């Protein structure tokens, strides 16, 4: 589904980063999607599409191992998930719906907590337009600014290779979106992979898309109809 780019990986499954085979997730007895298939290669990006409540966040939480109720297979570099989870988390940069920015800390302290050095953090904060806000407590920043503190992690010099981003473009202005797209493209060129959800169009290359609506179970639909009828 996604074409492999630069094959820098030296694993048994060269070029393959994250893939899913026959993945089925349910929540509260309702099947969100069924038989989901995708393969995300090194140097490629994948956008997950779907309406609100289609299960995008559940899919992401399943992929990173936070949610463990699923059927099917998730493979990281060709190795199935429960076994390869530590290795996946070692090379994972995840920014979720809740950004993971502590309100009681300053942007600098937040980035330091994620392992950034002082200079690297300053450069990254500058890149997301937070120059001059480094030492302000995050609880005094706006929602968009807090979001950008989290995104500053993507501008650190040494980022993990797999980016999983839940709605990274939300609450960003036009310039912010353009800058982030540039940064993601750069990450792909460096041999990284990006998996993201977005309601807005994303212009990065190479980008593949899957829509969760295509994996909605037909059996589930008929079940719903029979309840209604």
């Amino acid at each position: 589904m996604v074409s492999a780019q630069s094959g820098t990986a030296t694993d048994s499954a060269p070029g393959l980063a994250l893939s899913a085979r026959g993945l089925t997730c349910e929540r509260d007895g309702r099947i969100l999607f069924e038989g989901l298939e995708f393969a995300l290669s090194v140097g490629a990006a994948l956008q997950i599409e779907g309406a609100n409540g289609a299960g995008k966040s559940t899919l992401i939480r399943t992929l990173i191992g936070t949610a463990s109720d699923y059927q099917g297979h998730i493979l990281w570099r060709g190795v199935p998930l429960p076994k390869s989870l530590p290795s996946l988390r070692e090379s994972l940069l995840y920014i979720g719906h809740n950004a993971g920015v502590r309100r009681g800390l300053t942007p600098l302290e937040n980035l330091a907590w994620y392992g950034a050095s002082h200079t690297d953090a300053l450069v990254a904060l500058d890149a997301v337009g937070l120059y001059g806000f480094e030492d302000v407590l995050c609880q005094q920043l706006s929602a968009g600014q807090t979001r950008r503190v989290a995104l500053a992690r993507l501008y650190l010099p040494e980022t993990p290779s797999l980016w999983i981003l839940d709605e990274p473009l939300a609450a960003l202005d036009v310039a912010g979106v353009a800058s982030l797209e540039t940064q993601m493209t750069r990450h792909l060129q460096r041999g990284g992979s990006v998996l993201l959800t977005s309601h807005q169009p994303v212009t990065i290359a190479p980008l593949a898309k899957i829509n969760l609506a295509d994996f909605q179970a037909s059996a589930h639909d008929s079940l719903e109809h029979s309840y209604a009828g």
Partner: protein
Amino acid sequence: MSWQWFHRLGSPRWFYQKTSGWLPWLGAASLLLLAVGMAWGLGFAPQDSKQGNSYRIIYIHVPAAFLALAGYYIMAICGAVGLIWKMKLSFVVMRAAAPIGAALTFIALFTGAVWGKPTWGAYWVWDARITSMLILFFLYLGVMALSGAFAREQSGDKASALLALVGTVNIPIIYKSVDWWFTLHQPATLKLTQASTIDPSMFYPLITMIAGFYLFYAWVLILHTRSLVLQREWRTQWVRELLEKPAPAARA
């Protein structure tokens, strides 16, 4: 292959169909034992030299107290099995065991109070065993409250299973510390009748009652588990078929 039975055991449908056949036997056996034990203990066992007839409440109190504690361990073990092997049915049994155990704990507390009035002159004394039983009651209530607090069933299952396990680790410490606290604050003259010093003519009906209570517990646990299974699986095909099929009695 040898694990097949284990996974089949985890299937709510298999459980529901399999236990249908057991229920009448289990129910009949437990009611029979309870009736025999009750008649024997209340009607034919001799009077106690010190307590007169009031001691006869042990035929309810002791089995209920036994099962109250055992029930907590049954609940916690089911929770552990559910957490470790991700077995759905195990969580259902755990949820079913909680209110039954709490009810038995309450019976033990209530009968203890009724017994306390003629024996000690007060309905409630802070005796070590009664205090431990009260704390056990709170532990049950905690597990029940936590399992019901989550909108998502699986989270409630796992959270209350973990709490039950934490409680299991704590119960021996709690019991020991309450024992110690009691000996510190009160003279040890209020000890309940110990089973080891009891006369055989009083002991055999007690054993019958304990066996009856265990069977009764198993019966009620299975019944309650079955009703929870139906509630949880109501979307599935087999439950819908079961519910649409008219009961044999109704047809006749």
